[in-house]
């Protein structure tokens, strides 16, 4: 495209330049070739072909936003959690999503009863995770508010894997979730999610799978 543009520019520049240099002279006589002359037509169409460029259509398949909610860390109480999320919508059904979030564990019941016991250090109570998920929109539809207002929505399920860092140790974690996306406008969405992060740990002395369920509310922008 650039090459074409610059050649057009160059050609115009040359033409106009030539015109300016030869402005005092007479135009050279036109030489008409006789031999390859087609049958004469009455009207010679003098149409300047215009280069028509059709505009491109913007794709708005990405979704980016943040969320906030409560995370129940097994044995360590329920605590606020906040994070960011980014998604790419592959088709009307499937999307890929990534999450990055942070929370902080509270005290175990053992620590509540015996305050002199500490199970984890302060930095060890930080609960951070990232997830890579695949999601499926199972129930696309509309939510009606009153008689004359409807919002597009979709209930989706997600499944994925990632890392949970808790107790200063990284754990491989699976996550399962269900959520609802409510489109306030076509570019702004409200999310309500419930997700469970499952991983194996021996933090409380015995190796076991722990479920860490979070309920969050988020806002995302499509672009």
């Amino acid at each position, binding site marked *: 495209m650039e090459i074409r*543009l610059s050649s057009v*520019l160059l050609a*115009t*520049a040359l033409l*106009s*330049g030539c015109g*300016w240099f030869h402005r005092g002279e007479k135009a050279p006589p036109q030489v008409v070739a006789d031999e390859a002359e087609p049958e004469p037509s009455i009207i010679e169409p003098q149409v300047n072909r215009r280069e*028509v460029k*059709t*505009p*491109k*259509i*913007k*794709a*708005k*398949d990405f979704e980016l936003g943040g969320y906030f909610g409560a995370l129940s860390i097994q044995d360590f109480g329920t605590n606020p959690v906040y994070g960011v999320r980014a998604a*790419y*919508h*592959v*088709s*009307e059904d*499937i999307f*890929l999503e*990534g999450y990055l979030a942070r929370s902080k564990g509270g005290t175990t019941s053992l620590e509540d009863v015996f305050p002199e016991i500490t199970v984890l250090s302060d930095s060890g109570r930080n609960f951070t995770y990232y997830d*890579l998920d*695949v999601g499926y*929109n199972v*129930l*696309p*539809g*509309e939510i009606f508010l009153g008689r004359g207002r*409807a919002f*597009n929505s*979709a209930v989706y399920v997600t499944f994925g*894997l*990632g*890392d949970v860092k808790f107790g200063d*140790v*990284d*754990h*491989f974690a699976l996550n399962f979730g269900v959520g609802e996306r409510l*489109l306030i406008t*076509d570019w702004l969405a409200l999310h309500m999610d419930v997700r469970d992060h499952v991983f194996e740990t021996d933090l409380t002395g015995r190796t076991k799978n722990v479920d860490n369920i979070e309920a969050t509310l988020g806002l995302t922008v*499509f672009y």
Partner: protein
Amino acid sequence: MRRLLALLLLQAFNVGLVHAKERLLEVVVAQPFLEMHSGPGRGFPVVYVVGRDELVTVLYSRTEWYKVRAPRGQEGWVRRSDLALTKLASGEPAPIPAYPQFSSHRWEVGAGYGVFNHENLVTGWGDFGLTDSLDVEFVVEQALGTIDNRYIASIGMRHTFIPEWKWFSPTAGIGTAYQYIDDIVPPKPLQSGNQLAYVSLGARGFITRRFMWRADWRKYIAFTDQNQNEEPEEWKFGLAVFF
């Protein structure tokens, strides 16, 4: 000469101005009618219908749906296959971009699960195709073990043997990597980082639209300072989007 330069500049500026203005695609409905849905999906009802020979403006797309504006200002979502039947004002078919061909796609981004030396592995990758059958792949992974936690970054070349096989096509590759080892259980590892080299065998296949899967087995050699090199093994499976 100066005039020439000025003219040239003016022209360049003009072209720039024209390009800076956002123009939206306008298409003429060539089929008997065009259905507009309330949302980008088959679950959303038809809320408006545009008749033949009417002009609609295409605003943007989301997955396989296009948001359009009807002549009287109503907006709605049109399925790609319906929009592809419309025409430009000149009579040419509407330039609805096709999905990238799977066999000749250039870019790929994906993530997946694997096992590295009996440890759980989370992997993410980006891929650039130099030709249809030769790719450069960049992979970032985290292996979460009980003794250590490793971060591995690798770059390599991969050959797809028969790229035109859509559902299953074998691949093979070689490359180099670097691993950072973060110990969980003492003692500390003798080296917290090594360089690695690998060979890989794998396969890829198409799922739908821009969506694909990839499986890979890798044999690494970790160049350590000790008498023996480590030889970890890895396999993984993931899903990716291609462009």
